[in-house]
């Protein structure tokens, strides 16, 4: 177990280094110049001296390798530099937006699990009956309907029929839970439905597989109640792939909420990334990609570690 953990933690290093180099490279290949954007010109009437001075001020006159080295050294000390666009430390900018995205990701995952596992289990236990068909249609529908479209429709209905408008400022739950709830409930439900669809399908198919196992037949033969068989015997053994899926989806959510944040005009990490790329704000994009990738890798490691808890036969080597 200890060697396994050490090996896994060690493997994180090349992955993150690869991600860091990739984003650094991509940002430098993208045409566009933050200095030009800051100076506010379309390139036509900016004098060269000003541009050179701005490049020096932002540190963009250094060779690429030096820039990369400086940035990596900063990351090791948890210093992600300052935003070229706003001049604020990147960490501060990030801390304003991260709570919103994390809350959205957590709540949406929670909602999806609460919907998906009972429904998936039910559909599997009643395979090929109308219950199964209804659940499958609902879940395939959730996969098919674009979440931004659901968002647009929800907002339209709320605006037209209830005169509701999306609040502009994010209120953290610890400041005013009710205001936070009003703001988050629709985005959470929109995203939650989509992810519930994915998880329901996975739960259904894994429970179906497990229900064909011999020990389930033994459990029937013992005369156990169906509820006990499905929940206690089948579900727990069917959970491994489901947990993997939930975890992976959650890891994707942290960086993948842009569409939802755009529809509901929420100022989260996703929109921050898009704006930063538009401004060619290298430090911000690099930091965000790094943080998102780090979150992804850590969540994946945690998923793998929970396997042993669900299935004690699993040993880590």
């Amino acid at each position, binding site marked *: 177990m200890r060697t396994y953990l050490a090996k896994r933690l060690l*493997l994180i290093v*090349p*992955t*993150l280094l*690869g*991600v860091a180099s*990739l*984003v650094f490279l*991509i*940002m430098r*290949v*993208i*045409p*566009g110049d933050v200095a030009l954007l800051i100076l506010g010109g379309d390139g036509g009437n900016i004098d060269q001296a000003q541009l050179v001075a701005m490049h020096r001020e932002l540190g963009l006159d250094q060779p690429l390798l030096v820039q990369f080295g400086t940035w990596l050294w900063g990351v090791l000390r948890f210093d992600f530099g300052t935003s070229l666009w706003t001049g604020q430390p990147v960490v501060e900018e990030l801390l304003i937006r991260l709570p919103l995205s994390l809350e959205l990701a957590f709540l949406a995952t929670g909602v999806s699990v609460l919907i998906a596992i009972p429904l998936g289990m039910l559909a599997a236990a009643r*395979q*090929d009956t109308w219950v199964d*068909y209804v659940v*499958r*249609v609902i879940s*395939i*529908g959730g*996969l*098919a*309907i*674009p979440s*931004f*479209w659901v968002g*647009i*429709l929800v*907002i*339209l209905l709320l*605006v*037209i029929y209830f005169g509701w408008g999306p609040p502009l400022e994010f209120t953290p739950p610890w400041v005013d839970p009710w205001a936070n709830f009003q703001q988050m409930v629709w985005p959470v439900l929109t995203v939650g439905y989509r992810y519930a669809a994915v998880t329901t*399908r996975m739960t259904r*198919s894994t429970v*179906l*597989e497990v229900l*064909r196992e011999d020990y389930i*037949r033994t459990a*029937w033969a013992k005369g156990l109640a*169906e509820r006990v068989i499905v929940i206690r015997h089948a579900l727990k053994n069917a959970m491994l792939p489901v947990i993997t899926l939930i975890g992976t989806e959650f890891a994707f959510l942290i*960086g*993948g909420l*842009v*569409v939802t944040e*755009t529809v509901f005009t929420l100022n989260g990490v*996703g929109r921050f*990334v*898009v704006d930063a*790329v538009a401004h060619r704000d290298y430090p911000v*994009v690099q930091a965000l*990609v790094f943080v*998102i*990738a780090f979150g*992804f*890798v850590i969540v994946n490691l945690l998923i793998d570690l929970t396997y042993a808890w669900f299935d004690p036969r699993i040993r880590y080597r």
Partner: protein
Amino acid sequence: MSVQYPLVQVRVSEPLAPRLTFAEEVVKFVRTKPLGAAGALVVLAMLFVAVFVEALTRYDPYQGDYALQFARPSAEHWFGTDEFGRDLLTRIMYGARIALFVGFTASFAGCTLGALLGVLSAYWGGTLDLLLERLMDVLLAFPQLILALAIASILGPAVQNVVVAIAIPVIPRVARVVRATALSVKEHQYVEAVQALGASRPRVVLRHIIPNIMAPYLIMLTAQLGAAILAEAALSYLGLGTAEPTPSWGLMLSGSAASYAEKAPWIALFPGIAISLAVFGFNLFGDSLRDALDPKLRRG
């Protein structure tokens, strides 16, 4: 609620069952998988519309008629018109072309490249395997949106660039699955046998390993089709995909659609229905295909 288990199960084993003709296979698929057949119907209808769209409509998808801005759905314009007075139904039908093109090319390119890398990784092993695996880790952890943003900024917003942006994130996922399958295929005795007979490496890979990873490849390919159509819609909606005036479904929902929605809700309604229906069809079909191909999920 009790489940009855028959005491004796008599089944004709697979190789002894009579070989079905193509028509019989189709009939069997429709009878045993009604949902899958419905999905196939949607896919076929979409293909039909995409191919014959010129003959199906007399309006132009790009040329608007300002006298007809925001026309309500009527006998003339079934789905109404948009802010430029363009017929919405016509644009949605032309949109089927874009959706199908992106869906097929992106999932085919992504899955094929992923499968090839997966096979290479599994068969050659060693350092190559290690390097490819790490590369896949990096691609998996890299946020898809940044990739799409970067590709749109470097190559410009065009349909073929959207294909690249959607295909790349597919590669590591397929590579993982195929690598795992190829690793187990590689250990089979028939592979050892042909190697002992002196078959060259390319021959082993092409003739013996690749045919045996076709099932997971096909499953991932069909599963990816709907997802790719959805991704195109989302990227276009964000302004990172196709550019105006391309009749892309996602683009039709972006920007103007929401702001005009109170006046002309049909602009925001019909493209969304088109996306959902298309992805729904592809998913239903892909799902049933998987059930049919995966013997574990067959009802015993």
